[in-house]
């Protein structure tokens, strides 16, 4: 596509700052993580570090709480990212097309506001919103549905909060993608007598397929790592009802001092992230990648 005039060395040199940062502050800890996942390194309680082979992984295999956390993580990712943010973001983007400036401004303004709020503050908002004497119950109280949502349905609570916080990203991606869909296609399809639903399914969606895939990839991977929002809202509780793997890992590492075990769990999460990543990268089939 292009003819290169830059010397190879300079091209590689341009990567240097990024590479250096990534190697020292990203790959370094990762390699250390691979090592310490096979040790019993502890935050406190023992000064020595022993190599213990795959013990951490066999413990994990037999740890019902770990499996529970993995299951909750899956629910969280599918519920809040794949279904929630993605669908709602697409829906809002579709509904907002061609609306008046004020309608667009108001709706996307609010959606984006939720996104710009720092996650700790988002946690406070939802903590008070869903609290027993909170705003939601103030409304639902009229129909007798009031309860402490953080306590009775903690997973639903954190999923909704994450949908609220993350939808803006998907919405922006889809607004951009829809802008690029040529109107003529719709007109042609409409002339052919296609219903609105058919036009959406046969014309619009295929055209923005790549945006959908890359959006799904990014939000899945970001949701997989979500920590702050859940930590602020429920700390994984009550019991372990909302203890997703990142929360469980934090607890094991920093509260029960099992850095080695926590790191082993981190490795498993990394592998899951890698698998997701690879699937999506394959799906995109970016030709210049």
């Amino acid at each position: 596509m292009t003819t290169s005039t830059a010397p190879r060395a300079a091209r590689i040199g341009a990567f240097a700052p990024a590479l250096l940062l990534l190697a020292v502050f990203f790959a370094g800890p990762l390699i250390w993580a691979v090592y310490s996942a096979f040790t019993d390194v502890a935050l406190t309680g023992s000064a020595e570090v022993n190599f213990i082979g795959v013990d951490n992984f066999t413990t994990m295999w037999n740890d019902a709480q770990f499996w529970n956390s993995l299951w909750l993580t899956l629910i969280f990712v599918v519920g809040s990212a794949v279904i929630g943010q993605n669908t709602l973001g697409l829906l809002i983007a579709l509904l907002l097309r061609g609306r008046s400036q004020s309608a667009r401004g108001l709706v996307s303004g609010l959606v984006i506001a939720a996104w710009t709020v720092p996650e700790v503050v988002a946690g406070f908002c939802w903590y008070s919103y869903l609290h027993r004497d909170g705003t939601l119950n103030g409304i639902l109280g009229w129909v007798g549905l009031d309860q402490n949502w953080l306590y009775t349905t903690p997973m639903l609570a954190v999923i909704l909060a994450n949908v609220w916080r993350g939808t803006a990203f998907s919405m922006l991606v889809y607004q951009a993608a829809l802008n690029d869909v040529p109107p003529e296609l719709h007109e042609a399809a409409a002339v052919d007598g296609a219903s609105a639903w058919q036009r959406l399914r046969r014309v619009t969606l295929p055209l923005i397929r790549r945006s959908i895939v890359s959006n799904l990839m990014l939000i899945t991977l970001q949701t997989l790592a979500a920590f702050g929002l859940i930590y602020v809202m429920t700390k994984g509780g009550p019991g372990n009802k909302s203890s997703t793997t990142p929360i469980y890992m934090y607890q094991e590492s920093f509260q029960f001092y099992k850095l080695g075990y926590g790191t082993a769990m981190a490795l498993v999460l990394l592998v899951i992230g890698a698998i997701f990543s690879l699937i999506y990268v394959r799906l995109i089939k970016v030709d210049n990648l």
Partner: protein
Amino acid sequence: MTQTLAPPPPVKAKSRPTADLTMPGRGPMRFAVYLVLVIVAIAFFLPFLWLVVASIQPGAALSADITWQFSFKNFADVLNVDTIFRPVLNSLIISGGTALITVFAATLAAYPLSRYRSRFGRLFLYGILFSTGLPITAVMVPVYTMYSQFELTDSVPALILFMAASSLPFAIWMMKNFMDSVPVELEEAAWTDGAGWFQSLRRIILPLMIPGLTVVFVFTFVTQWGNFFVPFILLQSPESQPASVTIYTFFSTYGQVAYGQLAAFAILYTLPVVLLYTAMSRVFGGAFSLTGAVKG
């Protein structure tokens, strides 16, 4: 239905797309669409409600009981060096420093990725994509241990470098996509004039990339402004903590009791990023979005 279409005519910014499912134009469907939009707007607004109201209610607690007494006492109570000013200044230094380093390194790395095809670049890009998926909590344990080994804990510059490294994968990915949208023909002209790659990057691409650079900067800044876990683990001294950490501490200590003050604190802490975002949308028009960033 045929896919053999001429390249679409240039889409004007305000061109009105034609209707599909969601755009019937009139009648009950139109009403339904607006109804859904109103519900969405309300649903997105409600979680903010008590935070905003409580901030101007003296003595507000977690319970949403409006007293109809309003004052700015909560703001006055938290507007002091220890609660607001120092933490927010720390946040500015940390997020600003991180965003600057990230934009610098990402721009340099994105240029060859966007302009040249190479095995190395391909590999690098796969690595970048892969890294965006790494749960940050997962690397925090090893990062912490590594930092304590090299005595880098409690150092703000070291924290900034880690944050920059963790923001880089996504920043490079965004930046590369932005650069892809800058036509290569412009550079080819420069190359025939004998300009080197760095010069063409600086003279031709960067000016066209201002929106892209700003988006990456703001995106990194906003993300790190809200990042509480990384400084929570890596910084120890109370006086170097950013607002994200001090507000969490405030919440866990006084959340139930002094929710009004917490709300005031939260609003003051959130304000800078909202202003930043709004200012940027103004400058780049309503079209500002992650458009170029994630088209894939």
